[in-house]
C-alpha cells in the first residue's frame, strides 16, 4: 500500500489531535488548554462586539422616543430623495471605474511601506529599491495609458 492511502486511513481513523501528541487524556487536556488560551483575547473581542450591538439595539428600542413620519419611514438613500426601483441596470462604466480604483488603490498600499522604509536604505540598496519601485509604477503606467487610449474613463 502506498503512503498516501496509508496516510488517509490514519487520517480518518484517528482524530486530528492524535497526530500532535501521544493519545492520553492528560496530553489532550494540555493541548486544548494551550490552544484555547491563545484564542481568549479573540473570543473576548467577539463577545464585546456582539454584546455592544445587541445591548445598544435593545436599549434604544426600549428607551428611545418614537415619532414616525412619512419622511422617516421612506428608504434612506444618503439624504437624496429616492426615485425609481432598486433593480435598474447600471452602466458598465461604473464597474470599470471601480475596478480601476481598486487597482490604483492597491498600488498606493504597496507604495506606502516602501516610502516609509526608503530612507533607511543606504548605498546600492537605495538605488535598487528606487529602480524596483519605478519598474512597478512603470508597469502600472502602461496599463493606465492603455485604459486612457481605449476610452474607459470617458463619460458620455
Amino acid at each position, binding site marked *: 500500500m502506498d*503512503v*498516501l*492511502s496509508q496516510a488517509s486511513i490514519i487520517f480518518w481513523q484517528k482524530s486530528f489531535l492524535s497526530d500532535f501528541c501521544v493519545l492520553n487524556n492528560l496530553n489532550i487536556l494540555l493541548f486544548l488548554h494551550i490552544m484555547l488560551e491563545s484564542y481568549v483575547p479573540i473570543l473576548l473581542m467577539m463577545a464585546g462586539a456582539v454584546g455592544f450591538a445587541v445591548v445598544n439595539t435593545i436599549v434604544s428600542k426600549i428607551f428611545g422616543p418614537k415619532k414616525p413620519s412619512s419622511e422617516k419611514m421612506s428608504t434612506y438613500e444618503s439624504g437624496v430623495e429616492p426615485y425609481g426601483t432598486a433593480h435598474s441596470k447600471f452602466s458598465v462604466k461604473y464597474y470599470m471605474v471601480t475596478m480601476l480604483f481598486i487597482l490604483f488603490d492597491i498600488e498606493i498600499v504597496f507604495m506606502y511601506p516602501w516610502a516609509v522604509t526608503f530612507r533607511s536604505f543606504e548605498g546600492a540598496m537605495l538605488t*535598487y529599491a528606487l529602480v524596483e519601485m519605478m519598474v512597478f509604477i512603470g508597469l502600472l503606467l502602461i496599463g493606465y495609458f492603455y485604459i486612457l487610449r481605449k476610452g474607459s474613463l470617458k463619460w458620455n
Partner: protein
Amino acid sequence: MINSLDFANSIPLLIIGGAGLVVMLLETIFPKSQKGTSETLIFYFSLAAIVAAITFSFGDLTKNFIIYNKFIRVNTLTSVLNIVLLTGIFITVLSSKNYLQQEKINHGEYYSLLMFSLFGMMLMGQANDLIVVFVGLELMSICFYVLAGFMRRKVESNESAIKYFLLGAFLTGFLLLGIAFIYGYTGSTNYTAITDVHPQKDTFYLLGLTLVFIAFIFKTGSFPLQMWIPDVYQGAPTVVTGMMSSVGKTAAFGALISFFSIFALNNIPMVVAMVAILTMLYGNVVALVQSNIKRLLAYSSIAHAGYIMVGFLSINSFSIRAVLFYLVSYILMQSGAFIIISMVEEKTGDNTSKNTLESYKGLGKTNPMLSLLMTIFLFSLAGIPPFAGFWGKYYIFLSAIQVNYLWVAIIGILLSLVGVYYYIKVILYMWFYEPVGETTIAYRSDFSYTAAVISVIGLFAFGVYPDLILRYLRNII
C-alpha cells in the same frame, strides 16, 4: 538582490513579458483608421518575439542556475519546456490571423493575452517556489478565461468563459490551501528550502501535497475533474481551443514534473495509476459517441492527459523524457488538428458555427489538401507510425513497464486501441463518403496552411527520427 546575471539567464521570459506589453501599447497607439497597419505590425512583431525567445532558449539548454533570489530555475528541463511552449504559441499565432479576421474579432489584445498567458506558462515551468507556480498558473488561467470568451457577441463563447472561470477560480482555492499546508509543515514555499528540510510523512504535509495535486488534476483535465473540458473547448474560439488543449495542458504537466520530482512523489503509484486509467477510459469511451468534432477532440484530449499521466507512475529521468517527448508530439498534432477544424467550420444562418462530423463527409473529394493534413494529425493522435504520436505512446508505456507496472501499460494500450475507432471514423468520413450538401470552407489562409504544414513536418521528422528531440532530452538529470 537581483543582479545582471539573473537578467542574462532569463532572456526568453523577459522577451515574452516585454512583447506582451509592447503589443498592448501598439494596439492603443494607432488610431482606428489604421487598424490594418497595426494588426499586421502586431502579428509580425509577436512572431518575431517568439522566434527570438526560441533562439535564446536553445542557448539556455546546457545551463543549470537558480536565479532571482532562488525563485526561478534555468536548466535543461525548463529550457526544453520553454521551447515546446513557444513553438505551440508560434503555431497558434500563425493560424490565428485569418481566423480572427473571419470571425471579426481581430483585436490586438488577442496577441497580448497570448503573450501574457505564455509568460505565465513559462513561469510555471521555471518556478522554484510554490508561490511562483501559483502566480504563473493564475496569469495563464486569467488570460485563458478572457480568450475563451473572446467572441463576446456569441452566447456559446460566453458560456465557455464563465464555466471555465467559475470552476478555475474554485480550484485555485485548492492549490492555495495546499501551498498553505505545505508551508505550515516545512516553513517555506521554496523548492530549495523544502528539499533541505527532508519532509517526513505527516498528515498535514500529505494533505497539502494532495490538495496541490488535485489542483493540477483539474488543470490537466484528468479523471475526477474533467467535466469542464468538453463544454469549455466547444464554446471557445477554435484556435483558442487548440491552444488551451495543447499548450495549456503542456504547461500544467511541465509544472507537475517539477512538483513530482521536488517532493519525491514516487510513493503514490496506485493513486496515479487509477487517475491515469480512469482518465483514459473516460476520454476514449465517451469520445466514441460524439457527433461534434470539437467535442470529440476535447474527449480525445482527456484521453491523452491519461496517457501522459502514466508517465508519472514513478518519476525518473526516463519517464520525464517520455512525458516531454509525448508533450512535443501532442502539441503539434492537437493544435494542428484544431487549425484544420477552424478552417472547415460551417456557418449556419444565425451565425453560430456548426462543427458536426457530417460536414467532414466527402471532404477528401472537395479539399484533398486539407483532408490529407487532417488525416495525418488524426493518425498521429491515434498513435500510428511513422508519426511522432506513436513514439510518444511507445516511450510512455515503456516507462511504465520499466518500473514494473506492466498491467497499466497493457490497459493503456488496449484503451488507445479503442481510441483508434473514432479517429478512423473521421478519416473514413473524409475519404470514403460522398459529400452531404455543399461543404464550404470558412476561409482560406496561407498562414494557417503554413502552421499546419509546420506541424506535419515536425510530426513526420520526429516520427522517423526521434533522436532529433531525444538528443536534447538526454541531458535532463
